[in-house]
């Protein structure tokens, strides 16, 4: 045992001497090895990444508490200042929503009747996990957020995250108690979408600017400013029909997607998972045939 330890010490001695003499050179070498491993062993490095970030998120949570408290105080103060205006607006909205409620109930009944007629299978179940944004950790080249919920809370890679207004991105890395969210305007973000009225399918691609582009649109597709863009479940990567944004002319005159969610001001997001649709186990009956 002692001889083994002595051998290690003998071997470590020159390494230590080199490290003391050429620390910059040695650390550059370590950095290059890490970069190389990141390219050749992405899964192992990602697991390491998630494990270390798991350790950092509680510290971010603690540091973030005073910031949260200050923001909440500012928000509450603003609410108190505008309480009368807000009340009037909410009354008006409530009256409008009651009308919509009547319409929704009628449509729900119609829908149920049509589903029964067509013998449609039940809608896939959705799971919602609410997660606090622990860190706005982007850089000039990456648009990501750290969430303080991870595998133990049910978050998995590929799940879509929403704010109150629409989709904000997808989970790209999961630790035990943290997750990394790739915002939909990141250069590497790709989300299958459909234009709500024209039903044209496309891929929403971020380019690190505020407004993502649409790729792979069908040839000759006519784009109309103001048209809503929602997620498409084609390919099974994301659930269907989640609001993303509207088509709007960008600075260069090109039509891009203006996200309906404010990607710059996110405190809390909802991570949503829709179970994959089940493949029918029995062959489809011809229309009108009896059971």
């Amino acid at each position, binding site marked *: 045992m002692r001889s083994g330890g002595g051998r290690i010490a003998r071997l470590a001695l020159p390494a230590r001497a080199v490290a003391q003499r050429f620390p910059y050179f040695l*650390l550059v070498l370590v950095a290059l090895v*890490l970069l190389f491993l990141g390219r050749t062993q992405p899964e192992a490095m990602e697991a390491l*990444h998630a494990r270390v970030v798991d350790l950092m998120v509680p510290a*971010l949570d603690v540091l*973030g508490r005073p910031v949260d408290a200050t923001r909440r105080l500012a928000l509450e103060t603003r609410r108190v200042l505008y309480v009368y205006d807000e009340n009037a607006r909410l009354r008006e909205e409530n009256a409008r929503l009651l009308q919509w409620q009547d319409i929704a109930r009628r449509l729900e009944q119609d829908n149920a009747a049509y589903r029964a007629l067509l013998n449609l299978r039940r809608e896939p179940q959705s799971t919602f996990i609410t997660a606090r944004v622990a860190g706005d*950790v982007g850089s*000039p*080249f990456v648009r990501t957020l750290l969430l303080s919920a991870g595998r133990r809370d049910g978050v998995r890679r590929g799940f879509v995250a929403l704010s109150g207004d629409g989709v904000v991105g997808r989970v790209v890395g999961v630790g035990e108690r943290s997750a990394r969210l790739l915002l939909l305007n990141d250069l590497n973000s790709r989300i299958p979408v459909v234009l709500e009225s024209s039903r044209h399918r496309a891929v929403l691609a971020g380019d690190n600017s505020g407004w993502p582009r649409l790729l792979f649109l069908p040839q000759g597709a006519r784009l109309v400013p103001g048209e809503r863009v929602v997620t498409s479940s084609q390919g099974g990567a994301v659930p269907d029909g989640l609001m993303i944004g509207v088509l709007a002319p960008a600075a260069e005159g090109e039509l891009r997607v203006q996200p309906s969610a404010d990607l710059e001001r996110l*405190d809390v997001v909802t991570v949503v998972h829709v179970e994959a649709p089940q493949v029918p186990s029995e062959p489809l009956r011809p229309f009108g045939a009896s059971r």
Partner: protein
Amino acid sequence: MNATAVLARRLASGLPLTLTLLLVFASVLPLGVPRFSVLCPSVALLSVHYWAAKRPDLLPVGAAFPLGLVNDLLAGTPLGLGGLQLILVHWLAVRQARFFAREQFLAGWLGLVGSATLAGLVGWLGNALHQQALLDPRALLLQMAMTAAFYPVFVRLLAGPQRWLARHA
């Protein structure tokens, strides 16, 4: 040397690293400021530049490198790239230390601009190679400009801890 002095000395020796780590963590808190991740100066770069020039004994390159890794882990950039940038900043700052010793503020500032430009270039190249895309450098230029603009404030903020360190470590 009494126990209080020993404790003060120990605290002092860990101050630059602890302070830098706290600043890095504070810089990623979600403040709700639009484009904050771009507008926020690179605090790790500023801090490593400052301490490497003023007190390289208390923030050696062996401590600057893990700070770069922490930055990479938080931002989700390729692990090692931030470390590489901070090694470069540290190396350049140690070589500029004589300007700091003579309190030549403008020379120190210009030194930082040079370090930030080179580190930015390394970051841009590294990210472009990693993502295999020609990346728009405007956001990086904006962040580097913010880093340079924030330097005088940063130096003023760290002058207090630095004076305390001069007495205790």
